[in-house]
């Protein structure tokens, strides 16, 4: 039972309201529903910050400001993206900047602006009229339309000229998944000359700036340990929420979480603002409410039991957490699995983690004096409880349960450790993220990404020496990646394959100023050496790079590549087709143990026969 003196921290309620999967959710994660909810919280606790204080800025604020100040003159602005991207929030923000305090209607006219906050609420004929009106010479207003991509495409299919030329020059290029520099410049020119701009939220990559900013705002001490709610709470010493807040306030944890989210982005997923804040909110509260911590649900829970509500566990939660307090995961967490070290067992790394945290076995003489990092209180308490159970004097009543508890603690510590500076290195997913991000940022002058990928591919083709500049001309049959029995077939193309990395989308400077983005669609392009042609392309995402890094560490079994085997098979199949198109005639060899036999067909006048030639 909650004692009368204990009050619930409104910040916890606020954060839980941002989760998309909360059981008793009131959908306040949707922008339009939030204002009223925040007002209610402020009535309950006047010290609770207002919306302005909770607001985290992005580059789009500059667009709103520039529109207001007429620094940028547009006749038409499309905001296109998916649910939760922030299209409506932008419209509301622009309206606020224009001193419009009321709620937006389906269409709102404010001075020189007409805002359609959600095109799906508008009849298509009216929408078409509005757009065509904007395409006439010297329209009187700027039309801002928030619209999803599918509807935008459909809308333009139904419009005649001059909309069609606008579609070709501005809208369609802006919707492209990947855009190179040259096309970006052309698009920039078209935007400038037409006065029509498309902000495509699918190009947005705001994880790196928004994650720390949100966590900074949400973990302000005045809302937590210094607040009237937490300062008087009797459970603050063992509160997982407060423990999360204290950790999430540190830059190393903020940056570690950004890394996980960025890794997900580079694996091909997208994190709209709503998804991002939902997952961060879940990490902060662990899915708990103050009542849960103060009440019977967790009162008698062991410290180890409380660790399941810690940020490092909550962020990787993929299935429902059952009891004592049920928590539903955020769907995006499925995509973090590859960055979850919980189930990745490496004795050396576990040893390093234990040493770093000053943890030793019961018989060790080392008292933990070499610890380079301090365990947070809850984790220390959990470790102490377990250590106590391991004392010979306690008699091991239930060995299996103790083993299970030890394994759980170790999983928690592995996760926690990856967010702590000194023990965070050495994981493939981090290295793959580093390679991709460096490249996308244009900071890969040594071509580390390309060389890593090429070396790993060559290693898969059983090239023993380091070969990282070109793809070998002696390859295993591409179909071997799909059908293992074909791996005894080897192809010799008589040429190696040149490579380069390509990436997109690169936004025109005009758009780049208003949208955080990074060219995270990255490809390895390859072609027969000496021939410039349409290359074979292999999409490089963070999961594939992780798998290729493990190949470089010696795990050369093609099975370990999982679903990427098909991608690699297609890539190599295309390389073969390119070589044949360029007049190369690949020869086939059968590998028997260490020996290879070239296989050809000798064509005779009456019949053809096979010819085998041993090759060492």
């Amino acid at each position, binding site marked *: 039972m909650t004692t009368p003196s204990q009050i619930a921290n409104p910040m916890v309620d606020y954060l839980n309201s941002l989760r*998309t999967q909360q059981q008793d959710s009131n959908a306040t994660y949707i922008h339009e529903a939030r204002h009223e909810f925040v007002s209610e919280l402020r009535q309950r606790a006047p010290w609770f910050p207002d919306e302005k204080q909770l607001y985290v800025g992005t580059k789009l604020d500059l667009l709103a400001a520039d529109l207001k100040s007429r620094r940028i003159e547009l006749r038409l602005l499309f905001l296109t*993206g*998916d*649910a*939760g*991207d922030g299209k409506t929030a932008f419209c509301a923000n622009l309206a606020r900047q224009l001193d419009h305090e009321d709620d937006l209607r389906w269409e709102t006219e404010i001075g020189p602006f007409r805002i359609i906050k959600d095109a*799906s609420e508008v009849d298509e004929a009216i929408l078409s009229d509005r757009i065509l009106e904007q395409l006439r010479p010297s329209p009187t207003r700027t039309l801002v339309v928030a619209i*999803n*991509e*599918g*509807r935008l*495409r*459909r809308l333009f*299919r139904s419009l005649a000229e001059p909309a069609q030329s606008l579609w070709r020059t501005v809208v369609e290029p802006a919707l492209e998944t990947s855009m190179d520099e040259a096309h970006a410049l052309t698009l920039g020119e078209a935007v400038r000359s037409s006065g029509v701009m498309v902000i495509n939220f699918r190009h947005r990559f705001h994880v790196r700036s928004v994650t720390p900013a949100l966590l900074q705002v949400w973990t302000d001490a005045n809302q937590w340990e210094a607040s009237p709610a937490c300062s008087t709470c009797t459970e603050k010493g063992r509160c997982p929420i407060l423990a999360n807040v204290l950790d999430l306030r540190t830059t190393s944890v903020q940056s570690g979480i950004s890394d996980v989210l960025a890794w997900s982005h580079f694996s*091909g*997923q*997208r994190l*709209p603002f*709503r*998804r991002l804040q939902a997952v961060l909110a879940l990490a902060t509260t662990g899915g708990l409410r103050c009542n849960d911590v103060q009440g019977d649900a967790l009162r008698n829970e062991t410290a180890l039991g409380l660790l399941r509500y810690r940020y490092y566990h909550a962020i990787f939660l993929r299935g429902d957490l059952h009891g004592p307090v049920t928590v539903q995961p955020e*769907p*995006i967490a*499925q*995509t973090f699995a590859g960055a979850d070290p919980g189930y990745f067992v490496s004795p050396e790394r576990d040893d390093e983690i234990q040493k770093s945290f000053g943890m030793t076995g019961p018989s060790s003489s080392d008292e933990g004096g070499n610890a380079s990092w301090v365990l947070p209180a809850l984790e220390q308490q959990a470790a102490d409880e377990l250590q106590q159970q391991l004392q010979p004097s306690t008699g091991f009543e239930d060995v299996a349960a103790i083993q299970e508890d030890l394994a759980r603690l170790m999983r928690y510590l592995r996760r926690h450790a990856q967010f702590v500076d000194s023990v965070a290195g050495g994981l493939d997913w981090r290295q793959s993220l580093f390679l991709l991000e460096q490249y996308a940022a244009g900071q890969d002058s040594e071509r580390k990404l390309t060389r890593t990928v090429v070396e790993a591919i060559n290693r898969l083709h059983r090239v023993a020496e380091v070969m990282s500049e070109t793809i070998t001309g002696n390859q295993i*049959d*591409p*179909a071997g990646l799909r*059908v293992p*029995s*074909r791996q*005894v*077939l080897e*192809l010799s193309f008589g040429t190696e394959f040149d490579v380069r990395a390509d990436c997109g989308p690169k936004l025109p400077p005009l758009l780049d100023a208003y949208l955080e983005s990074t060219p995270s669609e990255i490809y390895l392009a390859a072609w027969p050496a000496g021939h410039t042609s349409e290359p074979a392309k292999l*999409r490089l995402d963070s999961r594939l790079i992780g798998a290729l890094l493990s190949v470089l560490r010696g795990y050369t079994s093609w099975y370990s590549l999982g*679903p990427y085997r*098909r*991608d690699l*098979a*297609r890539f190599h*199949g*295309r390389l*073969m*087709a390119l070589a*044949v198109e360029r007049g190369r005639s*690949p020869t*086939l060899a*059968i590998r*028997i143990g260490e020996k290879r036999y070239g*296989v*050809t*067909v*000798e*064509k005779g006048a009456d*019949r*053809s*026969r*096979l*010819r*085998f030639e*041993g090759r060492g």
Partner: protein
Amino acid sequence: MPVVMENLTERFQRYLGVQQAQSINSEDLSADAIARLMETRGDNSALIALWDRSQRKEQVADYRAHEHEPVLDELVRVLDATLVVQRERGSGRPKTFSPLFPEIIPAVKTGTLYRELGRTVLDGFWRPTDRVSPGFLSSLKLLIERWPQQHPLARLLQPLCRPLSSPSPAGTGNLNAAVTVDPLLAGWVDHVVAQDWTAYLKAAENLSADEQLDMMNALIGLHLHVALLYRLRGAGAESAAPVFFVAAARQPEQDRTCDRAAYNCFSFWRDRTAQAMRHVAGEIVDQTATANEELRSALNQGSWIRLSSWSGTEIKESGRRKRATTEFVRELKATINEAELRTPVPTAEIARHLVVGALYAAFDTTSGPAVKAKDFLRNAGRAAGIVGPEGSYRRKRYQLEDRAIEMLVRLHAARPAETIKTAEDERQSVGAWLDDLAERYGMIITLERERARARFDDATSASKVMRALRSHFPSEQAMATNREFLDERMELLRCVRKFSDASSIIYVG
């Protein structure tokens, strides 16, 4: 001269639109279709000789046993694992191969090996596509001609197989016959099938030769399966397209509720083959009665003795044994004797029922056409990757294999937006894909989608028989779980990109 009744097997196959209701591999279906399309088959005896230890040395230049035998063993092992489709029971020697080039498709014993099933594909699917999208057949030929260049084994083996011209004039296969009497099926072929094959050409562009062939096999299987469902929906349901529930969990034990529903749905359609055969038997009896005054009156005279005159009819069949005729006469006499004890005077309805029953029983054997049609339905579904699981001891159900998901996703991504049947703005969304699957093939993963629900209601209200399908579909909650399994698998297969929790977009790399 005895009156001769039409053979039930032949008429039943024509009714179903199946060239021959036989167990067959999907690769052989494609092979026969490719041979007919390219008008080329081959003499592959030199290739088959590689499996014969006494003959294969003839196939190797400068043969040295100690050095070349291990290489031949390894080559044969690779071919066994990747190219051989049918093989002889005793020797294990190959009879048919994956059709990576037309010359590997044998020109001899084609009737036994391929059962003319390629005719269904060429005349029933590809030629209609070419009518709707002129140039399709030439593009398909070009695609097939490129396979040996992209496939190292095909490249190696092609010179070993001598090409033989094998012209195949356009004919009227059984599917075409079925299409002429079933306007809904005709519309499905002209729209869905034609759009699918046009999309196939585009989807195949980025695939390897192996994958192109696999996808072709799967798409042929899917079309044959759905076409057969159209024909099995039965009298009274002609205005509604068929539907079936498909389980999305990878393993049956992951979701027992949907497993049961998927099994029941498949059983429903499988059992419809027997009903269809009975229907066709009725048509033959009616046709015979119409043509013969004596037999017609025998049905209506209310006399057991007069009805016995039907036992003087013969069934058209090849061979001297006349097994079906003998069985028909025996069955008819036995049932008349039995019925006579219960009813002194047969009504016209009872009389017809007995004759039809006897004709049906004459063909209802363990290898009869109804059983073969069930096999055909299952094998076509398996080829498409929508019927499983593999293994003879496991009960079959509608389930989505990974390869089926990939094929359906790739086709969807390759379709022009205007051909996707959905109300969703985002044509490449998973929601739009599910709508399209329901509209195109009657494939239902969840009824949460409005389009799927409408298609389901339409089908299950068409006739009393079809209404029974309602009870085989799982509850809405179970179907929501089914959808979750699908989402999970699509993510694992990397067939989808999630731009938000509400926007899952089809992705094919």
